[in-house]
C-alpha cells in the first residue's frame, strides 16, 4: 500500500505536514510528494535501513527496570518533521530572550535579590524550592551566566503557535539524538536533501565547546574541558560520550577527578592534569559530598570550593535549577518584562499555581480536566493526566496537592500538534513536542530545530523515551 494523504486525518489537531486531506503545507510539499511516490516495499526498505543504521551506529539509551538496566536502541521514525525557517527565526529569538531573562533572574536570586524587593516573585517561593542552593549565595560566575545550556520544551497547540511547556536548566539531555537523527536521515533519504534547503544541525558540538571554553578561568592557555558523567550505567551515557567525542573533550567520572589546593585535576597516564571547565551531567546534589549529598560517590570532594574560588568553571552552575521549577515557570513572562523590559516573544501555556488559594481551588474542582505536575520532577514522572486518570488516582492526587500545594502546578490539557509516522501499513498522525537547545555564555545560540519527540502510541501525549516515546529528525527549511 502506498502513502495516501487523502485518507490521512489528524482530526482537530494541528498537523505539521498536512493542512487538509490531500494537501500539504507549503514547506512540506516536496516531502509529501516524495513519500507518495514510493512503493510500499521501498518505504519498508527505508524503515529497515534506518533500524539497521541505528543498531550498528550503537545509538542507544538505557531503561531502568526491575529486570536490571537495559540498553535499548533509540526509537526513531523516518518521516522528518518540517518547520519553515521564517517561523523558526522568531521562535529562536524567543528562546534566547527567555534564557537571558532566566540567567538574570538566577544571578539576582543569589546576589542582590532585587526581584524579591520589587515584589515580582515572592521570596518564600524561592527559598522553599527544592532546587535553591543557599551555598551559592554571593557567587558571581563569569558573564553572570548560570545556565549555559538549556533545553526548552515547546509544544504547538491547535492554533498552530508554539508555547513553552517547560525550561530544563539542570542537565537537559537529548541533543545527541537530534544530531544522530540527522545522520540516520541522511543515510535513509539522501534524495530528499537535493530538493530542500535544510539548515544543518552539526554545528552544535562546536558551539557547545566555544560556550564552555568561554567560561574557562584560565584565559591565557588552551582550556581543558571535560564532560563529567555519572558513569556507564546512566541512562544518558550515550549522550555524554557522544558529546565528549564530538568536542574532543575528555569524558570523566567522579573517580577520575581529584581536588588539590582548591584546584581540580584529572588522573592521566602522565600524572595529574588541571581541569578548567566541567560540563557536568550530574545533579547538583551529587556534585560534591563535602557540600551536598554526603553519600554521593559520583561526585568529587572539594569540587564546590574550587568553583567558589573561581579555579574551575561548572556548566551549568550549581543552583541554576532554581529557575526551572515548574512553579517558577509561571512567572517567566513577568521576569522577561522585569529584567529585559521586553514582552515575551514565546507564550507560556496557561497555568494554575496550587500555592495560590483561589487557583488551587480551581485545580481541585477541575482535576479531571487538568494536567498536574510536581514542581521538581522531570522525565514525566509523578504527573497526573486528569482526563485519563481513574477516580482513585484523582482522589489520591487531591490529597497530595492539599498536603503540599507549593509542590504542584496545573495546566489545561493542551492539544499537541501531530506529524505523520510510518506505521506498519500507512502513515498515521502522532503527537509531538520539540526540545531545542539554547546556549549562552559571552554570546548565545539556538540549535536549528531541536529534538522532536513523538508519542508512538495512537492518541497518547507521552513523548518521553523512558516511557515509550520515539523521535524524529527535525528540518528547518529555508525558502529557495
Amino acid at each position, binding site marked *: 500500500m502506498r502513502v495516501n494523504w487523502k485518507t490521512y486525518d489528524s482530526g482537530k489537531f494541528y498537523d505539521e505536514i498536512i493542512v487538509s486531506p490531500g494537501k500539504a503545507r507549503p514547506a512540506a510539499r516536496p516531502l509529501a510528494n516524495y513519500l507518495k511516490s514510493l512503493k510500499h516495499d521501498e518505504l519498508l526498505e527505508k524503515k529497515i535501513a534506518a533500524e539497521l543504521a541505528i*543498531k*550498528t*551506529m*550503537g545509538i542507544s539509551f538505557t531503561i531502568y527496570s526491575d529486570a536490571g538496566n537495559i540498553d535499548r536502541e533509540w526509537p526513531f521514525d523516518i518521516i522528518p518533521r518540517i518547520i519553515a525557517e521564517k517561523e523558526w527565526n522568531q521562535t529562536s529569538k524567543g528562546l534566547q530572550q527567555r534564557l537571558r531573562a532566566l540567567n538574570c533572574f538566577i544571578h539576582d536570586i543569589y546576589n542582590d535579590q532585587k526581584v524579591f524587593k520589587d515584589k515580582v516573585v515572592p521570596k518564600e517561593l524561592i527559598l522553599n524550592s527544592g532546587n535553591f542552593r543557599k551555598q551559592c549565595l554571593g557567587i558571581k560566575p563569569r558573564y553572570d551566566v548560570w545556565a549555559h545550556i538549556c533545553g526548552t520544551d515547546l509544544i504547538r497547540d491547535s492554533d498552530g503557535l508554539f508555547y513553552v511547556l517547560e525550561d530544563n536548566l539542570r542537565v537537559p539531555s537529548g541533543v545527541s539524538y537530534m544530531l544522530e537523527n540527522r545522520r540516520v536521515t541522511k543515510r535513509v533519504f539522501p534524495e530528499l536533501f537535493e530538493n530542500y534547503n535544510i539548515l544543518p544541525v552539526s554545528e552544535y558540538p562546536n558551539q557547545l565547546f566555544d560556550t564552555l571554553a568561554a567560561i574557562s578561568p584560565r584565559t591565557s592557555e588552551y582550556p581543558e574541558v571535560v*564532560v563529567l558523567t555519572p558513569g*556507564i550505567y546512566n541512562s544518558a*551515557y550515550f549522550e555524554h*560520550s*557522544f558529546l*565528549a*567525542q564530538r568536542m574532543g*573533550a*575528555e*569524558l*570523566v*567520572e567522579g*573517580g*577520575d577527578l*581529584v581536588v588539590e589546593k582548591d584546584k581540580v585535576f*584529572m*588522573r*592521566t*597516564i*602522565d*600524572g*595529574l592534569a588541571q581541569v578548567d571547565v566541567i560540563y557536568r551531567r550530574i545533579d547538583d546534589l551529587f556534585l560534591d559530598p563535602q557540600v551536598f549529598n554526603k553519600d554521593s560517590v559520583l561526585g568529587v570532594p572539594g569540587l564546590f570550593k574550587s568553583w567558589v574560588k573561581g579555579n574551575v568553571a561548572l556548566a551549568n552552575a550549581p543552583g541554576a535549577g532554581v529557575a526551572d521549577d515548574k512553579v517558577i515557570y509561571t512567572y517567566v513572562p513577568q521576569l522577561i518584562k522585569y529584567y529585559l523590559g521586553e514582552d515575551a516573544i514565546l507564550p507560556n501555556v496557561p497555568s494554575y499555581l496550587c500555592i495560590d488559594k483561589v487557583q488551587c481551588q480551581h485545580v481541585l474542582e477541575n482535576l479531571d480536566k487538568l494536567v498536574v505536575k510536581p514542581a521538581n520532577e522531570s522525565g514525566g514522572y509523578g504527573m497526573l493526566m486528569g482526563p485519563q486518570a481513574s477516580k482513585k488516582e484523582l482522589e489520591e492526587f487531591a490529597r497530595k496537592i492539599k498536603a503540599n500545594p507549593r509542590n504542584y502546578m496545573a495546566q489545561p490539557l493542551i492539544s499537541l500538534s501531530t506529524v505523520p509516522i510510518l506505521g506498519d501499513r500507512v502513515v498515521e498522525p502522532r503527537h509531538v513536542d520539540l526540545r531545542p537547545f539554547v546556549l549562552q555564555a559571552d554570546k548565545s545560540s539556538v540549535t536549528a530545530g531541536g529534538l522532536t519527540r513523538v508519542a508512538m502510541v495512537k492518541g497518547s501525549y507521552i513523548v518521553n523515551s523512558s516511557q515509550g516515546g520515539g523521535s524524529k529528525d527535525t528540518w528547518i527549511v529555508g525558502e529557495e
Partner: protein
Amino acid sequence: MLSRVAERIYWQARYLERTENTARLLDVFSNLLMDLPRGTKLGWHTLVEITGTHKQFDATGRQPVERNVMKFLLNEDNGMSIINMLAAARENARTTREIMPTEAFEQINELYYYARDNLGKGISRGPRHELFEEIITSCQQLTGLMAGTMSHNDAYSFVRLGRNLERADMTTRIVDVGSGNLLAMNPSTGQTDDPFSNILWMNILRSISAYQMYRQHVKDRINAEDVVIFLIQDDEFPRAVGHCILQLSNVIDDLPNHGKALDQIGKAYRMIKRANIEKLLNDGLFQFIDDLQVEIAEIHQVISKTWFLPR
C-alpha cells in the same frame, strides 16, 4: 589521556585479540580432526586447559567431547567464550567512544551482533570454518581500521600494548598445544607418532597464519624444533612471541614513566632469546612456557601499576 580510559582501551584490544586467537585455536582443532586417521582421539579437554577454563568446565560435570567443549567456548556464559569476550570488547568500546574512531565502535558492534546470531552454528562441523573465518577477518579489519584511522597517539599505544601482550600470551599457549599432550602417546616409545606430530605442527602454523612465512624463513621440512624456535624466538613474524615483546618495548618508549615496564619487557625478551629450544624440547619445554607466561603476566602487572592505577 585518562588512566581509566587507557585501561579500557587496553582491555578492549586484548579481548579483540583474544577473540581472534580463540577462533584460530578452535579452527586448528577442527582442521586437525580431518587430517588424522579415524579413531585417533583428540584430547578436547586440552582446549579448556589452554584457555584456562578447565575448572569451570569440569564443574559443569559434562564430558569433554567435541560438542560440549565447542558449545562451552563459543556461546556459553563463561569468561573465555567468544560471545563473552566480544561482549566485553564491545562494552569497553562503548565506554571509550569519545576516544576511539566511530567506525571502530560500529564494527565491533556489528561483529558482536554477527557472533550472537551465528555462533550456535559453530557447534556442528559443517559451517564452523566459515564462522571462524568471518570472525578472524573482522578482527583483522578492525586492526587495520584502527591503524589507518586513529592518530598514533597514546590511545593507540594502549591498543598496541593490549594486542601484542595478548598475542604473545596466546602464542605461548598454542605452542603448548603442540608440545605433546594433544595426541595419544604411542605406549611402546612414549613418543607421539611422528607423522601425526608433523601434521599437528603444520596445523599449528596454519592456525596463526604462520605456515607460509615459516616455509620462507626456515626452508626446511616441518619439524618441532624449527617451529618452536620460529614461534617463540623470531623477531619478524608478527605473531611470534619475540616479535610481540619487541613491539611492546617500541610502543612503551613513547609513553611517560616507562622505566619499570621497559625493565620487565627486557627481562622477558632476554629469557626468550637465551632459551635453548633444542634442549628444552627433550625436557622442560612445559616448564619454560610456564615461566615465560609468568613473565608476560608480570608485564601486564607493571603496565597496570604504572598507567592504570590512580596514584
